């Protein structure tokens, strides 16, 4: 962000940020934090005072959770406020009272009072922490008033520990401070606070009394007070800056710093992260936390997996962008990441390796500094006593380790036996080779430590049995000392190398498996053309890759439906509610997350940049699998891939639908055009005739008058026919026509049709041939009469007046065949199917004035009877329409169509 004196326009980034913030706050409720520096400063009191004021202003205020600790002044202030009953939660037989989050969300007040923001909820609650509850309330658009002490803010956590010597476990992310619409600092001088403490006005839980007493020392209080004042001042400063940025007020702009901190499984990493966070805040900089995973430290990863995961989560919670990078060379990877992300400052911990180890492997800090170029490197040091904070290492004993030691001993015993057998033929120094072989075997088969044991035992056995004086550990020839040393050192080196090679292979194997499973999934997904296939591929691949049980939920209207799941996995209502939460909030939830941890599955939203498409729930076989970064990464990758595949299918569906819609629109437009033309033309004639009769009657001769009337009557007739056809077509298409099937005489059918057309037929020759005996055919006589009328009408229109029209009725197995044939021009071959389409008209120069609906109505009616209609050109000229009707009623005809 560059700004100079002449540039008076606000920077686009600043405006965008502001717009985003406004957009978010438009939906979010407003958070007001009553911030104190210790218990007893009067936060709750101040909050209630404010709440009473709001209530007087006519706002809807609800006390969601207020802890008065029995102080009478506070209780007085509670009067008149609506108190929400607390929810009783039983955990391990202990009854606990918690805030009823769901009741608040249903009650939907304008303002909710939530005391003690840093509170940890009872296990089994939806969220681990109360601040998460508050976030959800805010997201629902409800304002929240809350209280919290400064020492609970995450980035200040270690500073507070340093000042007071007390580690605060209940922490709140700093982003809540940024989120707050208003922060009210509740400040009283430490002397007054101490006075209140002595008067017993400060609530102290009995069990914590001692610790709290230590806490309430004047020095501590002063430091904490300063901390809270400074933090509030920093926030005011932030607001000022934001204001200046949007108003283009030139000022001391901070440079666009981007910080990066490298962490490992080291116990210092946490402190490193907090330090970087504070630095980033001071510099107003974006910051990144990177963990470089190298194959060489594979074992290290396993042991510190928990710690690394914990550290990365912490960094995420503090607002960092978190990444794990795999590389062989740490410093190169760090620099590559830094360059890629335009990092300006790299923060690393000061190494605490001893001098001699530095000689063997130079510290990474050195090489990073050497290659850093334009990037600043900040090295942070730690006090040694910090070490005790480290999370106890969870060493996983390999099951066969003890066995390995035993086997190593056995190997040495075997080597000794062999040497004993070969003693007559071998020099003692050559026997060393057998022991060396045993060490190599041990290191290949049993790992590093058993191999080292075997090296040691080998030396001892060799000394005891074969080095003179035999059967003692004494050594006559001092040259053997060199042999011992050689044997031992070679054993140790070999076993170390082997162990490292194994670990490297293991890391590669794990990576290989992950890569392969991702590859399989993406291959399967690419091959999936519909949602079902995608779901199947996803379930199968996640099952195989993670040895897990999977469930996938997709939104169906308002709720989530289970659309795919592993065999044997059943979701109860509670689990579905967790999935639902993950979907609505677009955050992961369930086991091993921050939210609704009591669930037995972990739920990840299937999200793309554009939307959330569903939720995937996974149950892993082992508890520790949930915390493995590899699994988490793989899960994330799976979820992303699946979401993209689902989105792709949705998009292609939408495109298809848009196409269909377009085609339908075109058709409808053509239809409307045609209809309006067909309706208006006869109307125009009728209107014209009528107006000329009304206005020019005297000037018209008798013959002209009768001609005009004849034309108008014909057109009116045509209009009536067209409207009738349109109505029929609409009825058929709307399915409003009900067939009244009755056994009918085909002769009667033809007779009715001929009668209806009597006038039009005039003297035209129409022949009707049928078998001497015809069965009665089940049909709807009215509709079928109309079919025959339409066919005859077409024949009359499209064939020359002198040529005959032929009707033939016959049967063919179980079908009635009814043909109407004329001697007209026929229809172009490629249009034979299209003649039954709506508004198809045979292009005749003069235009016979058809509606273009007749044949399509015929088709609709005949098909409703379970019959078929087709058109063919007669070999000797003319068109033949053939109707086939079933002689017996079929199932279908009893239904409406």
């Amino acid at each position, binding site marked *: 962000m560059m700004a100079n004196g002449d540039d008076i326009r606000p920077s686009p980034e600043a405006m965008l940020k502001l717009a985003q913030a406004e957009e978010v706050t438009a939906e979010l409720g407003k958070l007001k934090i009553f911030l104190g520096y210790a218990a007893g400063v009067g936060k709750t009191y101040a909050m209630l005072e404010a709440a009473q004021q709001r209530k007087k202003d006519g706002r809807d205020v609800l006390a969601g959770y207020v802890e008065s600790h029995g102080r009478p002044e506070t209780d007085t202030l509670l009067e008149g406020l609506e108190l929400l009953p607390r929810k009783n939660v039983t955990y391990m037989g202990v009854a606990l009272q918690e805030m009823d989050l769901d009741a608040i969300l249903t009650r939907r007040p304008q303002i909710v009072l939530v005391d003690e923001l840093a509170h940890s909820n009872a296990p089994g609650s939806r969220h681990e922490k109360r601040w998460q509850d508050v976030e959800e309330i805010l997201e629902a658009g409800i304002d929240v008033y809350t209280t919290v002490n400064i020492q609970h803010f995450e980035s200040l956590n270690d500073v507070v520990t340093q000042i007071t010597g007390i580690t605060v476990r209940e922490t709140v992310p700093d982003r809540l401070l940024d989120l707050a619409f208003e922060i009210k600092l509740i400040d009283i001088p430490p002397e007054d606070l101490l006075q209140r403490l002595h008067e017993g006005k400060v609530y102290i839980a009995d069990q914590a009394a001692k610790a709290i007493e230590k806490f309430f020392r004047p020095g501590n209080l002063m430091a904490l007070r300063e901390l809270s004042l400074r933090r509030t001042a920093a926030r005011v400063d932030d607001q000022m800056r934001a204001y200046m940025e949007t108003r283009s007020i030139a000022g001391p702009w901070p440079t666009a710093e981007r910080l990066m901190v490298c962490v490992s499984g080291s116990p210092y990493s946490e402190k490193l992260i907090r330090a970087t966070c504070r630095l980033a805040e001071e510099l107003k900089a974006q910051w990144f936390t990177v963990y470089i995973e190298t194959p060489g430290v594979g074992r290290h990863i396993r042991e510190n997996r928990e710690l690394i995961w914990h550290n990365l989560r912490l960094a995420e919670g503090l607002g960092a962008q978190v990444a794990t990078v795999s590389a062989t060379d740490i410093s190169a990877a760090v620099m590559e990441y830094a360059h890629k992300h335009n990092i300006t400052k790299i923060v690393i911990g000061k190494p605490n390796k001893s001098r001699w180890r530095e000689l063997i492997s130079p510290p990474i800090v050195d090489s990073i500094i050497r290659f850093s170029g334009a990037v600043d490197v900040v090295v942070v040091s730690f006090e040694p006593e910090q070490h005790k904070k480290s999370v106890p290492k969870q060493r996983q004993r390999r099951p066969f380790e003890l066995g390995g030691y035993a086997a190593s001993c056995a190997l040495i015993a075997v080597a000794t036996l062999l040497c004993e057998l070969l003693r007559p033929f071998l020099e003692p120094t050559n026997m060393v080779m057998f022991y060396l072989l045993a060490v190599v075997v041990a290191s290949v088969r049993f790992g590093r430590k058993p191999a080292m044991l075997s090296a040691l035992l080998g030396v001892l056995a060799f000394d005891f049995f074969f080095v003179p004086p035999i059967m003692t550990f004494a050594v006559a020839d001092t040259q053997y000392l060199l042999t011992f040393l050689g044997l031992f050192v070679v054993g140790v080196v070999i076993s170390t190398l082997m162990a490292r090679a194994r670990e490297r292979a293991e890391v590669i194997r794990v990576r290989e498996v992950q890569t392969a499973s991702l590859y399989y999934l993406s291959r399967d997904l690419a091959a999936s053309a519909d949602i079902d296939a995608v779901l199947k591929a996803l379930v199968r691949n996640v099952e195989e890759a993670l040895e897990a049980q999977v469930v996938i939920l997709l939104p169906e209207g308002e709720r989530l439906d289970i659309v795919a799941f592993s065999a044997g996995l059943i979701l109860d209502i509670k689990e579905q509610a967790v999935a639902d939460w993950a979907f609505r909030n677009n955050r992961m939830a369930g086991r091993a997350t921050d939210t609704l941890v009591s669930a037995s599955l972990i739920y990840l939203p299937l999200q793309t940049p554009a939307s959330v498409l569903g939720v995937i729930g996974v149950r892993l076989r082992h508890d520790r699998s949930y915390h493995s970064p590899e699994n988490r990464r793989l899960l994330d990758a799976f979820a992303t891939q699946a979401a993209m595949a689902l989105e792709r299918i949705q998009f292609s569906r939408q495109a298809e639908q848009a196409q269909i819609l377009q085609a339908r629109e075109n058709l409808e437009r053509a239809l409307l055009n045609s209809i309006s033309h067909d309706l208006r033309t006869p109307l125009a004639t009728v209107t014209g005739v009528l107006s000329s009769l009304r206005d020019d009657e005297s000037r018209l001769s008798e013959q002209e008058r009768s001609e005009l009337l004849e034309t108008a009557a014909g057109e009116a007739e045509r209009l009536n026919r067209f409207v*009738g056809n349109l109505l029929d077509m609409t009825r058929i298409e709307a399915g409003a026509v009900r067939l*009244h099937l009755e*056994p009918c*005489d085909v002769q*009667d059918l*033809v007779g*009715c049709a001929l*009668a209806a057309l009597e006038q039009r037929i005039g003297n035209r020759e129409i022949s009707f041939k049928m078998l001497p005996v015809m069965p*009665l055919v089940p049909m709807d006589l009215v509709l079928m009469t109309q079919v025959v009328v339409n066919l005859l009408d077409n024949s009359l229109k499209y064939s020359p007046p002198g040529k005959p029209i032929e009707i033939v009725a016959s049967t063919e197995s179980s079908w009635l065949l009814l043909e109407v044939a004329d001697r007209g021009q026929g229809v172009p071959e490629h249009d034979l199917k299209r003649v039954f389409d709506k508004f198809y008209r045979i292009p005749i120069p003069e235009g016979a004035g058809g509606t273009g609906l007749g044949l399509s109505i015929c088709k609709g009616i005949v098909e409703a009877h379970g019959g078929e209609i087709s058109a063919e050109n007669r070999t000797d000229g003319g068109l033949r329409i053939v109707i086939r009707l079933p002689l017996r009623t079929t199932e279908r005809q009893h239904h409406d169509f």
Partner: protein
Amino acid sequence: MTSEHTTDNLPRILIIDDELAIRRFLHTVLSRTEYALHEAENGHTGLAAAATFRPDVILLDLGLPDLDGIEVLRRIREWSPVPIIVLSVREREDDKVAALDAGADDYLTKPFGVSELRARIRAALRRSLQQTPEPVFVSADLSVDLSERRVTSHGEVIFLTPTEYDILRLLVTHAGKVMTHSQILKQVWGIAYLEQPHVLRVNISNLRRKIEADPSRPRHIITEPGVGYRLKVMEKAS
């Protein structure tokens, strides 16, 4: 709502229709042909007029604003056998059958031609004015002597089965009027045969073969698709 006609001996026609345009049109085409007209624009005034005006023919529209036309029909039929011709835009056969079964004498679908309307009115008047049925029915080449149960075509005696004769007699006594399938079935075979329309078709088919010159273009027994049959009345010559 009174007619301006003073002559009492003209046939009286009651028009029950809510459409002013239709009423005006009917008024124009019918008053010239010497009828005494009375108009009612809804069902209730129509019912009242039927009682006070005592029409010889009623022209009834089914789509009335206050009462359904079928209901009007039923209420008139409760006390009067006056011929009722239904004029309606409802062209579905269900509606026709319902109106005819409710007691309508004839059914004309709008739009209709004036000459068609006049013919139907004449036929209805003939039926209502005729006190005792003529013993001999003659239409073109067909003649039916009801007293002697004798049917001739072109002067030749035609032999009919008893059922065929019963059908023909029914049609003859209601000549010019549409008889619905159920009316014929009920009166010829009895109520048990209402669901057996094919016996009627077979008999009509046979009857036609005997009295029609070309059964596929019948001139006497006209099929009203979906409704029923009508015996056409033609002048002697043809």
